[in-house]
C-alpha cells in the first residue's frame, strides 16, 4: 500500500526534494539545455503546423492558391456532408466496441500471465509479439488475406457450418474484422495491466481466501479497485488511440474507406479530403473538430473517474 501503481503519480511526487535555490537555478538551466532539441522540434514540427492548420480550417485552401478566408463555412458544411457523418458513425462504432473489448482481452490475458506457472516468461513474450508487428503494414495485408473469400477464417467457420463468405468485401462484416484486428493487438495495455497486477500485495488475496471469498469476489473487491488507476490510464490511452485509427483501414480498403464506406474512418476521410481532393481547409477543420471532441471526451473521463478510480493515497 505504500506505492501507487500509476506512473503519473509517482513522477509527480519524485522531484519534490528541497534543494538550495542556486543549485536549482543551475539545474533548471541544464535541464532546459538538454530539453532544447526536443523543444525546438516540438515548436517547429508540432505547435507551428497546428497553429497554421487552425488558421487554414477557416479558409478555402487547395494547396496551390493562397488560402481564402471563409470563416466558419468549413465547419458548417461538415454537418451537411453525408460522408462526414458516415465517418463519424463508423469511428464511434469502432471506439465504443473496439476499445472495451481490447481492454477486456488485455486484462484477461494479463491475469492469466500473472499466475505462477512454469515458462511464464515465454508466454509473456509470445502474447506480446502480435503487438510488436501489429501496427505494421504487413499485418494489415495478412489480415486482408485471412478474411478474404475462401481465406483461412472463411474456411474455419465453414467447418462449423457457418457460411459468411469473405469479410473484406462485405460491408456488414468489415467493422467486425477491424475490431478483431485491434483486439488482437492487446499487447501494450496488457503489459501495463501486468505491471499493475504485480503491485497488488499478495496478502490481500490470502486474507480474502481465508474469509472464504471466491475468484469473482476477489476480482470485484480487490483486483478491480486496486487496479483502477491502471484501468483508467489504459482506457484513456486506448480511446484516444482508437479515434486515430488510420493505417490498417487505409491498407484494408486500398485507401478508399470501402466497401460502401464501411471502413471510412474519420482520419481516413480527413486524409482523402486533404490529399486526394485538395481541400486542405476542410481537412484542417476536420482535424480541429477531432482535437476538440477528443479533448471533451478526455475531460469527461477525468470528471467521472473520481467515482470509480481509487488511488492508494486517497483517504478511504
Amino acid at each position: 500500500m505504500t506505492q501507487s501503481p500509476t506512473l503519473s503519480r509517482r513522477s509527480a511526487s519524485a522531484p519534490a526534494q528541497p534543494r538550495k535555490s542556486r543549485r536549482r537555478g543551475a539545474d533548471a538551466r541544464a535541464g532546459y539545455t538538454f530539453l532544447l532539441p526536443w523543444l525546438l522540434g516540438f515548436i517547429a514540427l508540432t505547435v507551428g503546423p497546428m497553429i497554421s492548420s487552425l488558421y487554414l480550417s477557416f479558409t478555402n485552401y487547395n494547396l496551390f492558391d493562397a488560402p481564402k478566408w471563409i470563416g466558419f463555412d468549413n465547419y458548417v458544411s461538415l454537418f451537411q456532408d453525408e460522408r462526414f457523418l458516415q465517418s463519424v458513425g463508423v469511428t464511434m462504432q469502432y471506439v465504443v466496441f473496439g476499445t472495451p473489448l481490447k481492454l477486456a482481452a488485455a486484462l484477461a490475458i494479463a491475469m492469466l500471465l500473472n499466475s505462477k506457472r512454469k515458462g511464464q516468461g515465454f508466454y509473456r513474450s509470445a502474447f506480446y509479439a502480435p503487438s510488436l508487428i501489429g501496427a505494421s503494414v504487413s499485418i494489415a495485408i495478412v489480415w486482408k488475406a485471412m478474411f478474404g473469400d475462401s481465406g483461412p477464417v472463411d474456411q474455419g467457420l465453414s467447418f462449423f457450418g457457418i457460411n459468411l463468405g469473405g469479410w473484406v468485401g462485405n460491408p456488414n462484416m468489415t467493422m467486425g474484422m477491424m475490431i478483431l484486428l485491434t483486439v488482437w493487438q492487446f499487447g501494450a495495455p496488457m503489459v501495463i495491466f501486468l505491471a499493475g497486477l504485480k503491485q497488488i500485495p499478495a496478502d490481500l488475496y490470502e486474507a480474502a481466501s481465508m474469509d472464504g471469498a471466491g475468484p469473482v469476489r476477489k476480482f470485484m473487491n480487490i483486483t478491480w479497485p486496486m487496479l483502477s488507476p491502471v484501468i483508467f490510464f489504459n482506457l484513456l490511452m486506448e480511446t484516444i488511440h482508437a479515434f486515430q485509427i488510420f493505417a490498417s483501414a487505409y491498407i484494408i480498403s486500398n485507401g478508399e474507406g470501402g466497401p460502401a464506406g464501411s471502413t471510412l474512418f474519420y482520419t481516413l476521410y480527413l486524409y482523402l479530403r486533404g490529399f486526394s481532393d485538395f481541400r486542405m481547409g476542410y481537412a484542417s477543420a476536420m482535424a480541429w473538430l477531432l482535437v476538440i471532441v477528443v479533448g471533451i471526451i478526455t475531460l469527461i473521463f477525468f470528471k467521472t473517474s473520481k467515482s470509480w478510480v481509487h488511488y492508494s493515497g486517497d483517504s478511504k
Partner: protein
Amino acid sequence: MIDRRKFLGTVALGTASAAFLAACGQSSTAGQAGSAENPVTITYTWWGNDDRAERTRKAIALFESKNPDIKVNGNFSDFAGYWQKRATEAAGGGLPDVMQWDLSYLRDYGQRNQLLDLGTVKVNTDSFDKSLLPSGQIKGKTYGIPTSTNAFAVYYDPAKLQSLGIAEPDGTWTYKEFNAFLTEVGAKGNGTLFGGTDYTGIWWNFNIWLRQNNIQAFTEDGKLGFSKDDLKKWWNLTADLRGTGAIVGEDKTTQLLPKSPFGSNVTATEVTWDNFMAGYLADSGAKELKLVPVPSDDPDNLGLFLKPSMLMVASAKTKYKDAAARFIDFMVNDPEVGQIFKTSRGVPASKTQRDGTTFEGTDKLVVDYEKSIEKYLKDAPEPPIVGFGTLESTFKRVTQDLNYGKLTVDGAVDAWFKEAEDLIKQNA
C-alpha cells in the same frame, strides 16, 4: 558556379551536332545547360507497375547515351499514391522536372501555373494527329504532350465464350443487346463466371454514352453539360442486371483487388481502355483476348475518341527547361522508345514513333482495333474541369454503393451531383 556552367554550356554548343544547336541555343535565356563533362541532372517521375519501370529505365539509359550532357533521375509509384505525392510537392514548390501525367489532372495543375508551357520550349509535334493535341492544351497554352493514345473497347475472352457455347460478338450492338449478352453469360456461367462488371460505374463510359446522345460532358465555362435525368438514365441501364449473374458482385470485386475481375477470370468481358491488354493477358493467363467497340443505340455514332493515355509535362519551376524539353521530345518521338514500350503506354501518338515500332501479337491487336474504329472517331476531349480526379473517383464509388444496395439510383445521382456542385463552387 553558374558562370562556369554557362561557359561549359557554350563549349558544348560548339561541339554539339547541328540538331542540338537550336535546342541548346535557347539555353542562355531559358535555363541552364549541361555538357558531357558536367551534365545536368533532371528528375523524372511516373506511375505504373514493375513492367513499366523496366521499360522506362531502358528508355532513360538510351536517352542518356544519346545525350551525354543530361542525366535523368527516375522515380515511380502507383497511380493513387502518385497524385498525393504530386500535391504535396506542388504545395512545397518542388515538383520533379519532368512527369508522366494524366488528362484528369491537367487542369488542376496547368491552370494553377504549376506546369511549364511547352510552347515556349522546343518539342517537335509535327508528326502528331492535330485532333489529339488540344487534349494537352488549356487556353492556348500547351501543358502536356500525349505519349500515346487509347480508346474504349469491350474486351472478351473467346475461349470462355466457346466453353459456354456462346457466339463471339461482332461489336455492333445496342445497349439492350449488350445487356442480353451479359445476362446470357451470367446464366450459363452458373455463379462461377459472370458477364462483366457494372459498366455504368466508369466515368469515361458515361462520357461516351453522352457523346452518343450528342451531349457534352462539360461546358466551356467549366460547368456540367448534362442533367440529373441523363445520369439517372445511365445508371438505370443496368438496374435489372445488378445482383444477377450478368454483373459480378461488388463484394467479390473488392476481394480480388488489386487484380480486376476480368484479369482474375471471374468475368467474360470488361469495358475499358484498350491499352490494358498486356496487363489483362499477364493477369489472366488467357491465350487470347479480343477487342470490339462499345455498344451504341445509334449505329453511326459510337461516341468513341482517342484519348491521350498519358502525357508528358514539365514543372513550371524547372531550372533545366531545355533538358526537360529534350527528354520529353525524345520520349514522345523517338522510334526506339516506341520499340521499348510497344503498346504498354497505349498506341504511340507520334507518327514517327508509331511507324518506327513493330507491333506483333497482342500489340498488333490493340493497334488494329484503333485502326478499325478510325471512321467513328471524334475529337479528343478537352482537359476536364479542375478537380475532375475527385469526380471520377466519386463516380466509381457511388456506383459501388449502388451495387451494394446502399443507394438507390436517385440517391446515387443526388450524391454525385452534390459532390460535383460543391467542387465547381469551390474552384469557381
